[in-house]
């Protein structure tokens, strides 16, 4: 039978099938962080059972960590308590722990790939919905709840109904200023935030083939925002090149054996999907969101849609615009903004900082803007320094913070005040996501950079074209 990439990886991990029920799926690698794990560890304790395979779990602290003065004790007692719990739980169960200050510390979905924990054909879970990021390597990766974290710790398995399959093709060539983030926001705007619920997505077509691994991670990361369980891209030479030589990547004979398997990881010609959608790359321009879910995105040069042009939910739509203090038909370009956030597991990797720097180079940060530039990990931070990007940022009036999730979910001090606007490269613009009352405009690092130097929503192509002249 012809199989999809998803079928191949899934089927090879089924330990047991429950009739009329979920599959018992073996999990190769499990990542944990401080926020969604403490109750899971407590559960183990109350059952009196150990972690079954501690070597398959990796712990990092990222969600509520401060992004300045990480060498000092964490001030917020609740956060400090969670960090301490993670450290103690990791130690007690023999799990490797990359805490605050550790050279490998960073956002869970950034460090996984950096150290080769993320591999093609693997099953990877974490108590964070953007675990879908790891799908960029041809892994089945998805977010889980705390009960499931406990399940994986206790049994290295999870119980899941196999998702339906969807293939999203984007063909053609992306135009100037259009980044992987824009491709993803475009797809979500077309599918809406529930358009892929119940599906696991495979991305195919030349746009994804030509994308770097980092770009593929950005796209897979955002799969969850259209409701999908996860997204994946078939591994290719670029993938193998990326993972080669990383700390947890197999070597020698193991590498050869792994490669043999990895090379089989593609959808068979003629395999069928439950749903297939195709887009044209030429239709995509730099995107920005105007509302309170990631599906409310438009090409940056467009106006905010009128309520009657949308399907259903007029009251919800109006409530959303009211929260943002925007009006139907408004242009996005020119809207004043207060904050810029570059970072998160969506756009906190080195390429994102390169893109940001390419725009701010030789310009100055706008006075009305507070900018938080937060690398996804220490490794990214070092690269920013080594490549001279830090000098460009500093010269333009920006400072670099220390790694973590930061303003993506505002569990630390990096909160956007009520009523203020932030252009953010993260993944969610929900009400209050970046702090109570905060208003978030999701966009690419290029759009964020353009906003940071002009103090308002600006089409980055204008600043890029100037350079071409």
């Amino acid at each position: 039978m012809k199989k999809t990439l998803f079928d191949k990886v899934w089927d090879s991990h089924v330990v047991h099938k429950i009739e009329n029920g979920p599959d018992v799926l073996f999990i190769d690698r499990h990542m944990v962080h401080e926020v969604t794990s403490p109750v899971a560890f407590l559960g183990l304790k109350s059952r009196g059972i150990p972690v079954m395979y501690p070597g398959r779990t990796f712990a990092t602290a990222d969600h509520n960590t401060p992004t300045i003065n990480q060498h000092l004790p964490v001030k917020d007692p609740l956060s400090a308590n969670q960090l301490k719990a993670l450290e103690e739980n990791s130690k007690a169960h023999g799990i490797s722990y990359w805490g605050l200050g550790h050279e490998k510390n960073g956002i869970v979905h950034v460090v996984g790939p950096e150290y080769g924990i993320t591999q093609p054909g693997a099953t990877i879970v974490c108590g964070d919905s953007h675990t879908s990021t790891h799908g960029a390597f041809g892994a089945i990766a998805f977010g889980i709840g705390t009960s499931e974290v406990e399940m994986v710790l206790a049994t290295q398995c999870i119980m899941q109904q196999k998702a339906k399959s969807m293939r999203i093709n984007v063909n053609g060539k992306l135009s100037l200023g259009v980044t992987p983030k824009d491709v993803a926001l475009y797809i979500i705007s077309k599918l809406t935030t529930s358009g892929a619920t119940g599906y696991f997505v495979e991305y195919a077509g030349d746009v994804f083939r030509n994308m770097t691994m980092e770009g593929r991670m950005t796209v897979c990361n955002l799969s969850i925002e259209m409701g999908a369980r996860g997204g994946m891209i078939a591994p290719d030479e670029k993938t193998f090149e990326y993972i080669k030589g990383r700390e947890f990547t197999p070597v020698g004979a193991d590498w050869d054996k792994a490669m043999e398997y990895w090379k089989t990881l593609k959808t068979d010609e003629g395999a069928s999907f439950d749903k297939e959608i195709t887009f044209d790359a030429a239709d995509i321009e730099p995107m920005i969101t105007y509302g309170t879910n990631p599906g409310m995105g438009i090409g940056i040069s467009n106006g905010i849609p009128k309520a009657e042009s949308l399907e259903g939910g007029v009251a919800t739509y109006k409530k959303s615009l009211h929260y943002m203090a925007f009006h139907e038909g408004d242009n996005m370009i020119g809207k004043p903004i207060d904050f810029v956030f570059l970072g998160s597991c969506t756009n906190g990797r080195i390429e994102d900082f390169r893109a940001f720097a390419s725009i701010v180079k030789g310009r100055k940060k706008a006075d009305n803007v507070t900018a938080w530039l937060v690398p996804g990990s220490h490794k990214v931070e070092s690269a920013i320094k080594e490549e001279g990007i830090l000098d460009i940022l500093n010269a333009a009036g920006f400072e670099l913070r220390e790694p973590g999730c930061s303003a993506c979910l505002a569990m630390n001090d990096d909160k956007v005040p009520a009523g203020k606007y932030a252009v953010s490269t993260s993944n969610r613009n929900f009400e209050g996501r970046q702090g109570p009352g905060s208003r978030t405009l999701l966009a690419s690092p290029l759009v964020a950079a353009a906003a940071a130097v002009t103090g308002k929503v600006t089409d980055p192509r204008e600043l890029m074209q100037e350079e071409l002249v």
Partner: protein
Amino acid sequence: MAYDKFDILKTTAVPLPIENVDTDQIIPARFLKATERKGFGDNLFRDWRYNPDNSPKEDFVLNNPTFSGKILVGGKNFGSGSSREHAAWAVYDYGFRCVVSSFFADIFKNNCLNIGVLPVQVSAPFLEKIFEAIYADPKTELVVNLPEQTITLTTTGESESFDINHYKKDNMLNGFDDIDYLLNIKENIRAFAEDTPL
């Protein structure tokens, strides 16, 4: 974590006719700092329920004594966004045992089933009828019958059946969770793991 068995639930319901209610609204991230599963109900819908000075927002349904009950009736695409199980805990801890909507986000639905909150998906027209009935008379009771997989409006007797996976249904009826099941097949898992390199 064990929870109370679910069988037949007859109760009034709380209407929340908003679409795309995401888990950041159900429980904002700043309340995820606990290391124990306690007290989340107090912060259920925190920012819709309270002003920044912690005074209750009177127009929010949870602050309106007219509406109460063990069922929360939400708009389409309920529970989207973050995978935080805390959202399901908050719903449970507040006192709801069942959420009704015409569509649920995946992870939220799964989380609910894992902790003993029954997600009941009904058709869009039936959801409308439920809202109408509750607004017409807040004392309207709903009957959610898990063994029969039906949900009934007692005022009109109108009823719909809902889907639930057979295995999950069994768990809910008995108050079991997945870990109990998995621990019973540990030997299979071990054999599988030995063949699976890290």
